[in-house]
């Protein structure tokens, strides 16, 4: 991993953290979403992990690892006051039933209508869908974090998905290192440019037409 990538990932995670509201129940995917808690006021949101815990804390110190307590990335986490454990059916009942406020998840492609592909690349070994389809279909708000383009420059925001879909019309926001988009009634709207980024650069690197909403001053 180069020294550039972590900072790009942090820029995305930091901005994604501002999509969360105090009191939200939040499910975080692996990768960039897992960096989001570092940018959230401790205790302001409740983390949900689909393997069966709501309200958990940071990674433990080496001598405090409990093999009975892991997150969905299979990494050790810690109990906090108010933590609750439950089985997988109840956990996905929370997700599918619309009780989880926000899912922050990575993606390979997002379409202008809010379709998302994040589980299979043709020609590569498909390792499974995990909980992504349930999360995308069920979370009340879906925030996608991803780099704006592939490493070779191909856009990940596209008119139509070319990769196998995870769910259709479910994405609410897309946060990249260049910009923040929202999908509003099936239309893609650019709402914010990351610091130092121009509209021209975003247009050049985005594979779908979008509207540009004026006066999108970043909060903060």
């Amino acid at each position: 991993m180069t020294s550039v990538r972590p900072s790009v990932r942090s820029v995305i995670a930091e901005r994604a953290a501002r999509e969360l509201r105090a009191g939200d129940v939040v499910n975080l995917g692996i990768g960039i979403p897992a960096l989001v808690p570092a940018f959230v006021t401790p205790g302001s949101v409740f983390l949900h992990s689909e393997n069966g815990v709501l309200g958990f804390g940071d990674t433990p110190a080496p001598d405090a690892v409990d093999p009975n307590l892991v997150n969905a990335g299979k990494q050790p986490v810690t109990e906090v006051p108010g933590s609750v454990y439950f089985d997988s059916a109840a956990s996905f009942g929370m997700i599918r039933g619309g009780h989880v406020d926000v899912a922050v998840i990575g993606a390979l492609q997002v379409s202008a209508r809010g379709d998302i592909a994040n589980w299979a690349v043709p020609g590569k070994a498909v390792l499974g869908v995990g909980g992504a389809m349930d999360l995308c279909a069920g979370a009340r708000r879906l925030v996608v974090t991803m780099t704006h383009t592939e490493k070779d420059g191909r856009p990940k925001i596209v008119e139509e998905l070319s990769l196998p879909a995870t769910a259709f019309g479910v994405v609410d926001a897309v946060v990249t290192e260049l910009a923040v988009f929202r999908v509003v009634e099936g239309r893609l709207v650019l709402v914010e440019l990351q610091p130092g980024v121009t509209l021209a650069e975003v247009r050049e690197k985005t594979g779908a037409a979008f509207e540009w909403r004026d006066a999108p001053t970043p909060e903060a």
Partner: protein
Amino acid sequence: MNKLYGSAPEALGDVVKDGMLLAVGGFGLCGIPEALILALRDTGARDLTVVSNNAGVDGWGLGLLLETRQIRRMVSSYVGENKEFERQYLAGELELEFVPQGTLAERLRAGGAGIPGFYTKTGVGTVVADGKEHKVFDGETYILERGIRADVALVKAWKADRAGNLVYRKTARNFNPMVATSGRVTVAEVEEIVEIGELDPDEIHTPGIFVQRLVLNPTPEKRVEQRTVRQKAEV
């Protein structure tokens, strides 16, 4: 009725047969019935269909049964972390049914509760929906998914009493309660067995009615799959 067996091999010896469908609890390596999986391997039973969220890793958990080619078909949500699985699958030696994780949990829950099928919006429009009945409720499209009954179910709990009432520990609970209900014969591996009456009836997670056999394994290995700890630099 005595549910306690002297060892995992004794508990599985007369119930596991070639071609059976087994459901196995656990999420990754967390909350897997380690001793029962080893005993299942040692039964030598073949052509098994195994329903489990994951397929273990190379050399541990259900990965052990992939090495011995005892599994013909896996029903799972995610099978990364296992090179042998990938090799057998790409070589066409192993069938695989991908099920979204929440759908898998609900299919086991439904099967155990006598519900043959249910509708869900998870997977609508994707490859998961191929060939399944679609139905519109209140303007939204859902697909029909089937409940799963297992010939034999293997679960891991923390504590049991002699009646088979189970208590799980933290996130090692995961799929185990649903898997327990799905089995025609359910075998539970636990770390401690207490007398009837010693568990608080209000704190039992799986009632013993779902558990036919018990095996004591006081010292499971409990491997941690992704051992990240504090003091790390930025990811």
